[in-house]
């Protein structure tokens, strides 16, 4: 399989382990990635004019003829939204007038969806079963929104399926698709901190040993903010938060270095060691 790869801006900073594990997992699964030439920011959640936001996404879409894959739910949602909006003739003609070329029927994919497709055909590559690892999928918002995508925008279950494929145990929790409030973190830190505290507590109460995310902003909030929340609330939370590509990479037998596991704030190493111990038994 050959895909254009849209890493997104955070892959060069706060989401380096997302980028690294995405590339490593794709190599291991025989997925050939071609980085999108001269890609630009999708606008994230900070370009309020929808036509401009559509134009920014469309500029990326026209850089390739290949299906475009991204590991970031925000980029994914913006690119998908642009494809939907471009079906409106008036929107399309305005956007096309600004860009150097037009695109036909672009296909946008999230790395989660690509991995699942490959593993459903061939799960022989899963050499390290994540036996009994209590794994809580955290969806956040944008993997399935706008609607019409790979799963229900209200009650997604696609990651539970992946978790089972990896022989881990999915843990359900009430706030699994509740917004992490990341987009208002800068101006509204306290409110956002309260929300992520609730999400982490909810997952912990449900028995999660590890959380899995598909969005670098959710990840930043749940992982990099976790120690600060512990200090604020005077309690230990201690839940590692893995990118879905890191979780899959562990099951593929890839090492901590290849998956950037040393870059997570809450170390996932104790969990990885537990997995290897269970496999050895």
């Amino acid at each position, binding site marked *: 399989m050959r895909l254009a790869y849209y890493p997104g801006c955070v892959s060069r900073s706060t989401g380096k382990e997302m980028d690294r594990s995405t590339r490593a997992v794709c190599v291991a699964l025989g997925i050939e990635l071609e980085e999108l030439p001269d*890609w630009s920011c999708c606008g*994230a959640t900070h370009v*309020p*004019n929808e*036509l401009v936001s559509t134009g920014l996404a469309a500029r990326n879409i026209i850089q390739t003829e290949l299906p475009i894959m991204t590991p970031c739910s925000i980029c994914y*949602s913006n690119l998908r939204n642009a494809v939907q909006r471009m079906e409106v003739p008036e929107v399309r003609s305005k956007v096309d007038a600004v860009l150097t070329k037009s695109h036909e029927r672009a296909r946008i994919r999230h790395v989660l969806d690509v991995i699942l497709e490959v593993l459903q055909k061939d799960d022989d590559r899963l050499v390290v079963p994540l036996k009994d690892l209590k794994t809580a999928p955290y969806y956040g*918002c944008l993997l399935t929104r706008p609607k019409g995508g790979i799963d229900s925008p209200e009650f997604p279950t696609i990651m539970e399926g992946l978790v089972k494929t990896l022989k881990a145990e999915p843990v359900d929790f009430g706030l699994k698709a509740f917004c992490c409030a990341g987009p208002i973190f800068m101006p509204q830190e306290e409110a956002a901190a309260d929300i992520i505290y609730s999400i982490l507590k909810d997952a912990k109460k449900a028995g999660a040993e590890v959380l899995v995310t598909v969005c670098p902003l959710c990840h930043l909030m749940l992982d990099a903010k976790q120690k600060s929340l512990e200090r604020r609330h005077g309690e230990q939370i201690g839940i590692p938060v893995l990118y879905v590509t890191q979780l899959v990479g562990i099951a593929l037998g890839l090492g901590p270095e290849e998956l950037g596991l040393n870059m997570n704030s809450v170390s996932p190493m104790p969990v990885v060691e537990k997995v290897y111990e269970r496999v050895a038994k």
Partner: protein
Amino acid sequence: MSPVKGDAKFTNEVLRLAGLEVRTCIQCGTCSAACPTAHLMDNSIRRLVKFSLEGRKEEALASSSVWLCTSCLLCTVRCPRGIRPKVLVGALRDIFEREGRKDKDQAYEDLFMRQIMDLGRISEALLSAEYLLADPASAVQTMEMGLELLPKGKITVQKDRIKGTDEVKSIFAELGKG
């Protein structure tokens, strides 16, 4: 919907940016019930729609709610009339910004867009540093996050400018007009 008594020009501009279907709002409040930050808002999303349709420009633009939307899209998923309230909030932000109005919540968005126009991509470190000047109270959280990320090698300070910045600028300039 009640007849427009207020600023009809404002109403029309919101409709142009957010879609004519906004007029079909039945004020059921599903958007507000779905909103993950409703508890922080002075006016619910339902009221922002109402203010917009009634031309109550000042009430709409002065509302803190405009800056509390996280773009989670749940309102848009659930709206029984197929309205996209998130895009309506975006329209209010856009109008606020185009009129040159300023506040701390808007400052982050403004810096974000300037950086896309300037470099084509976002440098989170640079953005946080610039925001610090606009909102000195953010120093604590920025330092805390910085100290967390620095040893992990996740703070990149070098500017990374794409070739197509002119194209990006024209996207903002041309499509921003409407």
